[in-house]
Structure formats: C-alpha cells, structure tokens
C-alpha cells in the first residue's frame, strides 16, 4: 500500500486564478479526499452594504464579482424594487436581459478558454479570448465600460440602445455564432479533448441534487433547472429558449452544456432586439425604501444567484445577504474527485467555473461554543496553519524599510 500524502494547492497556484486553498489527500496517484478552504477573498461586502445608501450599494454589489457583475446588480435591484413596489418599464427589462445574456456569452467564452488552458490546449484559449473581445467591445459600446457595466439604476436602466447599436449587436451575434459552431466542433468532436474530458469528474444526478449543484454544473448532470425558465424575471417571459442539459454527467458534459447555452444566448439576444418595446427607460425611485423584505433569484452564468434584502424605511438596507452559485457548486467538487487522479484536480475544479470572490461570505454559527470573535477566528487560523502546514505567519516579516 502506498503511503497517504496530503498535497496543498493554493492560495497561490498556477492553475487557480483566484486565491482558494485545497488539501488533496492522495493514495498513490488517486485522490482519496479533497478539502476546500475558502475565505481568502472575504471583503465584508454584506456588512458594508448596511452602512451605505441603496444607490451606493448598487456599485458595491456590482463589485462582488467582476465576471458576473450585472447578475449581482440586477438580482439586488429586483429585490429592492419588489420592496419599494416599483414597476420597471418593459424596455428597461429588455435592456437588462440583453446585457445579462451578453455577460453570459463573455463568461462562457472565458470559461471555455480557461478550461482549455487547464488541459494544456492553449490554442483554444487564445482563440476563444480573441473572439471574446468582440462581445467586450460591444459591452463597452452599449454601457461605456468593458467589465463593470453599471447599466442598472433603481427603477430602470440608465442607457438606451439606439438603432445603430442594434445593427452592430446583430452583426456581432452572426460572427460569434459562426465561431461558436467551430468551437462546438473542436470541443465536442475533437478526439483528444473528448478523451481527456470524458468520465472525468463524474457527478451522478442523485449526487448533484444532494450536493445542491446549480447552473451548468447541475444541468450537465440531467438537472434541467434554470431560473430564467422557472421564475421568468426581466424579459425572459417573452422569449423562446431551450434549457440545455446533458446526460454525460462529467466535465465533457459541462463543456457541451456551456457551448449549447452560448448558442441559446445568441438566439435570445436576437429575439429581444427584434421585440424591443418603446417605453420610458426608468420610473422615479424613492430614496427611502419602505420597510419590508424580499428574496430575488437570478440565473447568473454560473448558476442560481440569490439575494435577500431587508429594508427598514430608511435610505439604507438593514440586511443584505447574498448566495452566489459557486458556494453551491464547490461542495460537489469532492464528490466529483472521488477515485479520480491528481492530474484531473485542476480541470475538475475549473469545470464548475469557480468564482471565489462571489463565494466568500462569512457565517457566524450562534450556538454557544461555536461563536467566535474576529480576533479569535484570526488566532484560530494562525494556529491551524502552524499545526497543519508548518507555517508560522507571525514570524513572516518584511526585510525592507
């Protein structure tokens, strides 16, 4: 019997673009157990939201995650608008959906490149990121910024889509659809990719439900659930689209689902542009939101995003709670890697499209003993690293002035 070995991955690791830490227990070359440790990216956004007016919160919430910034902002606003009883005009809803779908396209293209990079297929990374610039340019044209668009305001959107811009969007969709067909061909029919991704990171439908997998990760395991179809927020009630799912249940299936969703997104944007109604862009919103609470759901590129807002009649929220899709998906990583190989760890982690800046929230369990103050928590972390990793962070000092 080979000796058991624990390999720490992260917080800084070539395969991870974000700080997160994984302890991989190995039996020979096979993974026996994987322990996920989060919290490196915890910024305290929920608390900061309570100290700022709603309008400022919007900018803060948008920076929960740079990749799905529009998702978080829209999700938060839907909750606030529900409490305030605002009727968002239809055109604003359409524009929100259009930007949301564009965000999905850029996020899925980004994922395709990153996943290709993890399996050593850098050519595909360069190809997809080249084409991703088309959608980034379009977003810059429509909103003024490439990444954090800030197109939403309380009660509507701040910028209209003109006739010329409509033409440009449709033209870009044609180009992207053509390119995506090529990627679909490369990623789903190319024999090397197929062999590399098939049967890697298997997550059975039962386990997917048990672990609470959402979004493309769940849909690749036959869980045909999509908030866009279930809840029909924004303008999704007025367009036809399929909920893409796959029965491969592995990393290959997750790639198939994401490429299928890209094609759906192009069709959704085309339909929305065609139907774009003529209404005002926004309704006047009050500064003080009446007391009440609301939960809002949104299908972010990575899965279901949930925001909870409680208002108390002032211009600041009393409580904001958000749960990003990665927190739901990251639990399933250890199940996916059961009896897998060490070489598969990075691609399996990348396959859930993790976004740890979305995920890092803090929860304090209040049942007597488990309650910790910030200082105790910090001390606990230092002690833990000293004991388990042999690193004494209190001794790390800078040799500079």
């Amino acid at each position, binding site marked *: 019997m080979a000796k058991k070995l624990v390999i720490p991955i992260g917080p800084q690791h070539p395969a991870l*673009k974000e700080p997160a830490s994984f302890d991989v227990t190995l039996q020979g070359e096979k993974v026996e157990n994987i322990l996920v440790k989060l919290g490196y990216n915890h910024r305290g956004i929920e608390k900061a939201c309570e100290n700022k007016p709603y309008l400022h919160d919007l900018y803060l919430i948008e920076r929960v995650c740079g990749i799905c910034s529009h998702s978080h902002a829209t999700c938060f606003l839907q909750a606030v608008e529900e409490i305030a009883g605002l009727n968002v005009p239809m055109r604003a809803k359409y524009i929100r959906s259009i930007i949301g779908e564009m965000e999905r396209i850029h996020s899925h293209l980004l994922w395709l490149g990153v996943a290709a990079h993890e399996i050593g297929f850098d050519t595909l990374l360069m190809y997809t990121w080249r084409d991703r610039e088309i959608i980034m340019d379009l977003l810059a044209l429509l909103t003024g910024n490439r990444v954090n668009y800030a197109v939403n305001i309380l009660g509507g959107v701040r910028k209209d889509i003109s006739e010329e811009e409509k033409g440009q969007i449709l033209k870009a969709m044609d180009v992207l659809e053509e390119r995506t067909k090529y990627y679909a061909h490369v990623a789903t029919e190319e024999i090397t990719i197929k062999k590399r991704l098939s049967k890697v990171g298997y997550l059975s439908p039962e386990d997917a439900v048990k672990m609470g997998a959402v979004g493309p990760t769940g849909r690749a395991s036959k869980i045909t659930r999509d908030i866009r179809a279930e809840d029909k927020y924004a303008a999704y009630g007025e367009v036809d689209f399929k909920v893409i799912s796959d029965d491969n249940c592995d990393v290959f299936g997750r790639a198939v689902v994401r490429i299928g969703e890209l094609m759906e997104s192009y069709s959704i944007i085309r339909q929305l542009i065609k139907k774009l109604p003529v209404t005002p862009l926004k309704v006047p919103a009050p500064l003080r939101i009446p007391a009440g609470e609301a939960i809002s759901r949104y299908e972010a590129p990575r899965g279901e995003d949930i925001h909870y807002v409680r208002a108390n009649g002032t211009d600041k929220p009393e409580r904001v709670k958000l749960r990003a899709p990665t927190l739901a998906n990251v639990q399933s990583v250890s199940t996916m890697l059961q009896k897998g190989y060490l070489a598969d760890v990075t691609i399996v982690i990348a396959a859930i499209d993790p976004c740890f800046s979305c995920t890092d929230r803090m929860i304090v369990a209040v049942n007597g003993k488990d309650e910790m103050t910030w200082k105790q928590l910090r001390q606990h972390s230092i002690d833990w690293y000293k004991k388990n990793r042999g690193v004494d962070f209190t001794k790390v000092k800078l040799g500079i002035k």
Partner: protein
Amino acid sequence: MIKAVQKLITWSRLKSPWIIHFNTGACNACDIEIVAALTPTYDLERFGVQLKGTPRHADVLLCSGPVTRQIKDRLVRIYEQLPEPKFVVAVGTCACSGGVFEGCYNMLSGIDEAIPVNAYIPGCPASPDAIIDGITKLLKSFEESEAKKLTKAGG
C-alpha cells in the same frame, strides 16, 4: 562587473519581463483584464511579457485588489520569493487605494500598505490598454535608472 555584461543583463531583463499575477482580494474584473491583455487582441507578449506560475521565475508581481487581511501574509511571502530586482504593479483602483471597499472591516486600503509598489494603474477595472501602458512605463523607468547607474560607474 564588466560594462558590456551589465548592459547585456539589463537588455535581457528589459526584453523578457516575466510576470506573476496574484489576486489579493479583487473582484476578478482586473484579473480577467490582465488575461485579456495577454491574449491575441492586446498581445502583451510582444514586449516579451510572459505569465509564469511561480514567483521564483517572475520579475514583476501584478497585484489586483485591495489586500484582505487573510491574504496579506501570503502576499508578503510571495513578494519575498521574487528574485531581485523585483517590481510590483498595483492593477486597478482597489489595488491603488482601496476603491469601493474603503472602510470594509476585512480590508487594507491598497497594496502599498503591505508591500512597496513601483507602478499604479488606476481604473475600475484597469483596461488592457492601461495595463500595457503601465508595464511599458515601468520598463522605461527601469531602463533609465540602469542607464544612469552605468554612466555613474563609467565616470
């Protein structure tokens, strides 16, 4: 050291500044813009810039995000692992000054509270054009300071 050898070393440093990217609590926006700067449309590689996996191979540390308390000690360790001469670039408004996260309980306000910084690139997020501009300016200032040193040594 012989002047010609010194010149050669400076030349090779200028022509192949290898970078390492470390997310110190950013929202991912600056991070995807850094990768976008490295991919074909913006192509930072034409300046010899390559992304490396370990700090021991890198000359330039690209940091994005205001430093969270949890990541600060790790950032210092990574900084110490960089070989001399090392450069730190703060990418994005958060990394420069704390940005929207100013005042959050788990945050420092900017990279320069943890380690010394050579170049600041503002923007939320810093666009690839700005990142390229920042890196080339950093290289230029390094070139000038090395040239000054050489003339001083030469008398």
